[in-house]
């Protein structure tokens, strides 16, 4: 059974369609890449899936539960969590406190939450700075912190929104390794990414969005050779 089903999801803002009739589904344990040019509606789709916007049309089903109308916090408790394109650290809280906030979704004990948090920090290799203020971390570490915080909510599906954006190649590589490691642990992931090299490496399947619609879906190879995708990315070749 698919862990996530997206059926005919549309989202309108005023008269503008940010997503129209997008459908795809994800299997347990896979990594789904979600790509598309600027303004293609990737982040809007994330918002529709995680409860920030109710979809105007269509359905999102997670582990058999219909998500439409559920709030982000309820979605999180069901086991789906997202990160943000523009990192959103809880700036005036320490690193470990940030992650504890996530862990507290699963426990009310601060002690348990701290242990859980430290574990996640170890996973993302930030366990050497638990007491630093999150707002003072360099961008690469803030991105990792965000992943750790999301992991602390013990998700079954992790949605990553441009975790590599703004990172240098070495940092990006670290994140790629992290994603692959999480996959090895059985975590299902959906990844929005602009770095094509990276997305091609990590994704099992890729969905391409263009001006709100699903343009293509398939394995990385398939996608790279798809002329529609090339046109969407490089512009129409005019002879």
């Amino acid at each position, binding site marked *: 059974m698919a862990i996530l089903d997206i059926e005919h999801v549309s989202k309108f803002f005023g008269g503008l369609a940010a997503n129209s009739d997008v459908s795809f589904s994800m299997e347990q344990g896979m990594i789904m890449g979600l790509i598309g040019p*600027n303004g293609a509606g990737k982040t809007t789709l994330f918002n529709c899936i995680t409860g920030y916007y109710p979809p105007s049309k269509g359905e999102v089903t997670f582990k058999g539960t219909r998500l439409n109308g559920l709030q982000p916090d309820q979605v999180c408790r069901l086991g789906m969590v997202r990160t943000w394109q523009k990192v959103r650290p809880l700036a005036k809280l320490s690193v470990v406190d940030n992650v504890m906030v996530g862990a507290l979704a699963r426990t009310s004990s601060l002690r348990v939450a701290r242990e859980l948090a430290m574990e996640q920090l170890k996973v993302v290799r930030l366990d050497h700075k638990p007491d630093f203020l999150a707002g003072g971390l360099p961008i690469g570490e803030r991105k990792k912190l965000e992943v750790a915080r999301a992991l602390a909510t013990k998700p079954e599906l992790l949605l990553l929104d441009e975790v590599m954006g703004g990172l240098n190649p070495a940092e990006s590589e670290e994140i790629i390794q992290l994603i692959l490691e999480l996959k090895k642990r059985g975590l299902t992931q959906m990844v929005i990414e602009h770095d094509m090299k990276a997305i091609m490496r990590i994704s099992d399947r890729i969905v391409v969005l263009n001006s709100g619609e699903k343009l293509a879906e398939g394995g990385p190879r398939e996608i790279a050779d798809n002329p529609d995708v090339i046109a969407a990315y490089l512009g129409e070749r005019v002879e």
Partner: protein
Amino acid sequence: MLQIRKLNFAYGDLQVLWDVDLEVKQGEIVTVVGANGAGKSTILRNVSRLVRPTSGSITFEGTELSRVPSHKVVEMGIVQVPEARRIFPEMTVTENLRMGSFVKSTRKDRERNMERVFSLFPRLAERKGQLGGTMSGGEQQMLAIGRGLMGNPRVMLLDEPSLGLSPLLVRNIFEIIKEINRQGTTILLVEQNVFQSLRISHRAYVLETGRVVLSGPGAELLDNAHVKKAFLGI
């Protein structure tokens, strides 16, 4: 004409541009292509001095811009048509165009420039009294370019003019850019639409995560394998 040397820029601790070198010569169309988030727009924002570079220099006809406040940059003839149009939504077409010639030295040419804009974009002439915010994306883009032309630009900075437009309109816009250049305005263009923009460019730069990785005549880059690789990861 416009020269960028070793430009570095960071938003906070997020470094966006690394040692960017770029040059625009009189009469050229120069394009910067690159994926989302590569830092293309940031270059233009630095030139227009909406932001201050971390290091490096930007000179326009020999004048170092670091000592020029942003509103003076426009007076020097550097006019930017920003990404997402940024039309003044509560102003009419005419008012928007008038704002394009806010700089004192350009006000005397206002009538003539307006004629020129209306002849380039007859659609705008039909909608003089319409509020900017109520226009379609394509019309807004025309208005944004028209507004830029009102300022007698010597060099025009265009930020993703094709974004969100239908293929037909995209083609149209690029034709007009070419025409503007033919009429004597130097153009620095930032684009995601690689094929279209390279086709009309004299020269182009490829930007990857804040670094210039390739540069050369537009036509050459058009067939360069690296460009494809940079964009599609293949």
